């Protein structure tokens, strides 16, 4: 029996596969993961049915919807601040005076958030502002690192090209640095959204009174309700993927040239 070429390609290195095959491969691996979950022998690991039941209970009886809203509002607020601060710092790398500051902020990514709770509490007074500040701090140091690198890597020819056209340095900043790296800024934002989303449990745990999925998961964990814990993790994963997809759509709309430049393997 002849094996379809697309199926052959799926098992050969450096081959392209069509969309239908990509979807087929995704479905295969999801099904395999699900079967592996069913087959896991550990009693402490809740079964899919238990997680599904816990999810319904959390959503309808324990107010998971408002908690999710609280978390999304927090992360979007922090993301907005992160983008504004990080882009301003990254674009400032074109001015030598600011480079040491940008370099210093970038190095702060090696600091853990836990030890910074006290100073941040003193600065913000605690509560929602503390969580926004912690999350913003956590994301900014990574955002600045990636974005400043993207700005530094702009080829000199791009600047010279605009100078030859007679552009002012301000216009060059706009065209080459800001507009020219918009796609990279969106990609970095996408990565940082994931970083922020991963930090959410820790940050919301600092001040549980305000709720949020992070606080919810810690409370469930304390009572060893593992099905509930996994149900919340599942929601975090799905919402994270939706946010990630949304940024991808924004990139495709604002920067259609990126898809044209991408070499399809």
């Amino acid at each position, binding site marked *: 029996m002849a094996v379809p070429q697309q199926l052959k390609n799926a098992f050969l290195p450096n081959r392209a596969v069509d969309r239908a095959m990509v979807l087929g491969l995704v479905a295969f691996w999801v099904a395999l993961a699900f079967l592996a979950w069913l087959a896991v022998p550990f009693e402490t690991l809740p079964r899919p049915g238990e997680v599904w039941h816990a999810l319904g209970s959390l959503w309808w009886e324990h107010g998971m919807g408002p908690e999710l809203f609280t978390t999304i509002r927090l992360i979007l607020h922090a993301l907005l601040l992160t983008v504004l601060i990080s882009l301003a710092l990254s674009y400032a790398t074109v001015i030598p005076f600011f480079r040491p500051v940008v370099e210093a902020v970038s190095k702060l990514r090696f600091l853990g958030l836990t030890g910074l709770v006290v100073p941040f509490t003193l600065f913000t007074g605690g509560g929602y502002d503390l969580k926004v500040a912690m999350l913003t701090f956590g994301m900014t140091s990574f955002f600045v690192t990636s974005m400043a690198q993207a700005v530094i890597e702009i080829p000199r020819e791009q600047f010279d090209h605009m100078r030859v056209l*007679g552009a002012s340095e301000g216009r060059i900043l706009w065209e080459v640095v800001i507009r020219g790296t918009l796609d990279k800024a969106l990609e970095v934002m996408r990565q940082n959204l994931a970083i922020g989303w991963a930090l959410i449990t820790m940050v919301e745990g600092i001040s549980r009174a305000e709720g949020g999925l992070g606080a919810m998961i810690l409370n469930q964990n304390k009572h060893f309700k593992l099905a509930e814990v996994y149900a919340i993790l599942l929601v975090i994963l799905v919402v994270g993927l939706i946010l990630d997809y949304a940024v991808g759509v924004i990139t495709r709309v604002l920067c259609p040239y990126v898809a044209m430049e991408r070499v399809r393997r």
Partner: protein
Amino acid sequence: MTDSFGETLLEVREVSERLGNNQILEKLSFEVRDRIRPGKVTGQLVGLLGPSGVGKTRLLRLIAGLDKPDTGVILGQKSQPMAAGTVGLIFQNYVLLRHRTVMGNLVTAGVANGMGRGESKDKASHLLERFGLADRGSFYPAQLSGGQRQRVAIAQQLVHNKSLLLMDEPFSGLDPIALEEVIKLVTEVAHMQELNTIIIVTHDIRAAMLVSDTLLMLGRDRTPEGKVIPGARIQHSYDMVERGMAWRDNLELDPKFPAMEREIVERFRQL
């Protein structure tokens, strides 16, 4: 009436340039004057030949006003100093703004140079039409072929009537048909206006001969023992018009062409 020379359009006088401990250019001088042909609009096409690494691109950057020479002066029409933005420079890899469409690239060039948006758009449309790119206005650079990209890069420099255009290796990597088309295009652009001057940096001797009315050979001096002395300057120049080797079709069919090509190749070896 015979052909003659008019005003000086570009004067490079005693230019020296050093990069670290490396002397790149040493007291380099040449000038480009308006070639006048009665009854014909005639621009200037100068081929700048030289081996790799001799400082050709460095010289282009100085003429374009992107860098300042350590010593010496570079003057344009009416002995005006050259400033960035007054000279067109087409980079070897045809740099364009990747986030703008073809039309957007051309309009940005006009606006950057102080033209109004409407005026820039009109000029851009006219240039796209002239360069056979009218249907590519909404395309992004990533959607263009190498040849189309080159034409857009040239058109972009012409939005703001620049009479001096510098081209860095425009013939590299072209097949014979594409080469013929580029030579045709460059010649057409040069002869659009009397004072138009195009300086083409290349190491493709044959292509340079086919397109130029003047050939300049950039190279370094050597000691009697054959050791290279740092710092390039113009070693030889050829007036192709005087030799009857310019402004003609099918130049390569002229029996004198191969002989001259051999002569230039022989000189090139010494650079």
